């Protein structure tokens, strides 16, 4: 098991470094005359050249990258070109907000999807058809449209929730719940659609296996057969889909945060993008890559725990 974890950690680190190389090259080489863009069109060529050497932009790209990497390893991602704020500070104050949304949405979609998927697989008939229909709609309708619909109906027309704003989890739990309920629902619906389908399919497959018949013939109650044995076997593929959904949720959170005016990574991402604040964008790419790698690692560990065969492959 230790070797399994170690191998995954090493491949994760390699992935993060690779992504940073590609992103750095594209961002810094594709950005054109960066010093000119920061200083504006009226700056003198001397000022532009001075700024460029100040930012290290006159050095070869690989020297620049190695310099960036050296600082990045110590937790210094440079500072924003436009606000001067350290990238690490700008991101770390907001990453918890986004993560609380995304993790909340993942947990909700896992629970609801398992319930719906098992229900559809066991009941079949109309229950199955209903879950299929919900899945199709959840799959086809973009998440931000769902978010817009929720805001319009529940926050603006019915006034059950505040349409915008965010309260920190540490400040007030009820306040947090009130501000994140709609965003989490908006994010979770797509995940529910995908994972419920997968759970349904895997449970139907697992129910046909001989071991299920054996367990039943031994007189085990149906609920125990399903929740202790069938779900354990059906869980692997569902987890794989959930991991992918999580990656997608990070992107979805950008739009949803914008709609609900939640001060998360999404807002930084949009401002940094429109301004062309390359160090900040680079930091965001790196942080998302790290989050994705960690989540994949956790899912791999869960997979290995659910199904020992995975550890060997």
């Amino acid at each position, binding site marked *: 098991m230790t070797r399994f974890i170690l191998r995954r950690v090493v491949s994760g680190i390699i992935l993060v470094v690779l*992504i940073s190389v590609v*992103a750095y090259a*594209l*961002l810094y080489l*594709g*950005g054109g005359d960066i010093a000119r863009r920061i200083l504006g069109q009226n700056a003198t060529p001397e000022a532009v050249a001075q700024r460029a050497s100040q930012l290290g932009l006159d050095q070869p790209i690989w020297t620049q990258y190695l310099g960036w990497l050296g600082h990045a390893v110590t937790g210094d991602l440079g500072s924003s070109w436009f606000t001067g704020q350290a990238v690490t500070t700008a991101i770390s104050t907001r990453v918890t907000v986004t993560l609380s949304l995304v993790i909340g949405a993942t947990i909700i979609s896992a629970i609801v999807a398992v319930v719906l998927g098992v229900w559809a697989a066991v009941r079949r008939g109309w229950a199955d058809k209903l879950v*299929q229909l919900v899945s*199709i709609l959840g*799959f*086809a*309708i*973009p998440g*931000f*449209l769902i978010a*817009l*619909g929720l805001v*319009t109906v529940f926050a*603006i027309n019915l006034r059950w929730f505040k349409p915008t704003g965010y309260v920190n989890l540490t400040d007030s739990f009820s306040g947090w719940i009130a501000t994140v309920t709609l965003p989490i629902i908006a*994010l979770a619906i*797509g995940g529910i659609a*995908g994972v419920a*389908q*997968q759970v349904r399919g*895997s449970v*139907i*497959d697992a129910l*046909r*296996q001989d071991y299920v018949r054996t367990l039943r013939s031994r007189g085990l109650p149906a609920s125990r057969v399903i929740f202790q044995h069938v779900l354990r*076997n059906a869980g*692997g*593929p569902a987890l*794989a*889909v959930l991991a*992918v*959904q999580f*990656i*997608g*949720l*990070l*992107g*979805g959170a*950008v*739009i949803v945060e914008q*709609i609900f005016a939640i001060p998360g990574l999404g807002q930084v*991402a*949009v401002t940094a*993008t*429109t*301004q*062309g*604040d*390359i160090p900040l*964008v*680079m930091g*965001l*790419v790196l942080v*998302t890559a790290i989050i*994705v790698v960690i989540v994949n690692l956790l899912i791999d560990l869960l997979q290995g725990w659910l*199904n020992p*065969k995975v550890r060997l492959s």
Partner: protein
Amino acid sequence: MTATTPLPASTPSVGVEERAARTHLFRRLLHNPVGLVSLVFLAIVVLAGIFAPLLAPADPNRASLQDVLAEPGAAHLLGADSAGRDVLSRLLFGTQFSLAGALVALAVAVVIGVTSGLLAGYFGGWFDSVSAWTSGLVMALPGFVVLLAARAVIGPSMWLSMAIFGVLLSPAFHRLVYASVTAVRGELFVDAARVSGLGNGRIIARHILTVVRAPVIIQASLVAGIAIAIQAGLEFLGLGDLSIPTWGSMLNDGFSNVFNAPILMLWPSLAIALTSIALTLLGNAMRDELERSASGAKRSKKRKSASAPATVPTSLSTIGIQTMLDEDAAAPRTVVHEEEAGATGATRTWRRRSSASRTCRSATARATAR
């Protein structure tokens, strides 16, 4: 589902696909109620987009101070937006640009994905490993964040960002085509073609492309829906090109005026949602029809009953995610109960690799959209 399903014997499903492709998918779709409705709706949308210059009552970008947030009426059939621009005209021109943007992404994804999938699947070798690795890397990236990063560099160009999104989508086609091609590469008819002296190019064009055509069309329908959603998302955030009307930028305008004129959000929302749903349902209907026509064909029926596992018909006839994108339903079976399938060592390793990764892939394509 069919050609890419990691079944114990992938041959029948491929045969099925190939036959089905020949039995006029289009004509069959017309007899499928869901397929027909989606097709008609999409046709209307496409025509509305193409003939927007003729249909639109006004210039979509002409602002007028008197008409700011005008109610629907004789002057503006669907009202006017916060800059006094005619909503109906913007909706029609928005259809044109939204569809064109999605088409760019789709075209890039198909060209890259199908070409690399064909080459990797047919010739194998180093290109195979490199492309498998690259598509894995691309799939591990959160697509939307990549698009934002790209936007920071290239500026607000809808065409460029959709082309980049096409690159991000290409693994969806690469893996599909790769799986189909590896499944038929060892087939007798391919060997026969080679023995009769056909060159690689001819074999690929004549025999291999026929096999991958149907699954690629189905995948394209689903991917187009994703591209429309992503493009609308970017424009909604105001990261797109403000000079061209799109559904997403209309939505943005509607949302900023949600307290004054919530109806502005209605039309672009409906356009995006209905088009996405129609594309998804169309993909499903095509898959269902291919499957039905395949099980109706005599030859394939015989071969199918001989080797396909019992689970396949259920997972094929359902209308869910795994049937929409691909082979999820079969994946757990092959991973967990491999021995039972009685595969040979070679196919077993292939399946293990492909089934696990593909389970993720179908969802990835969608997940990137959120």
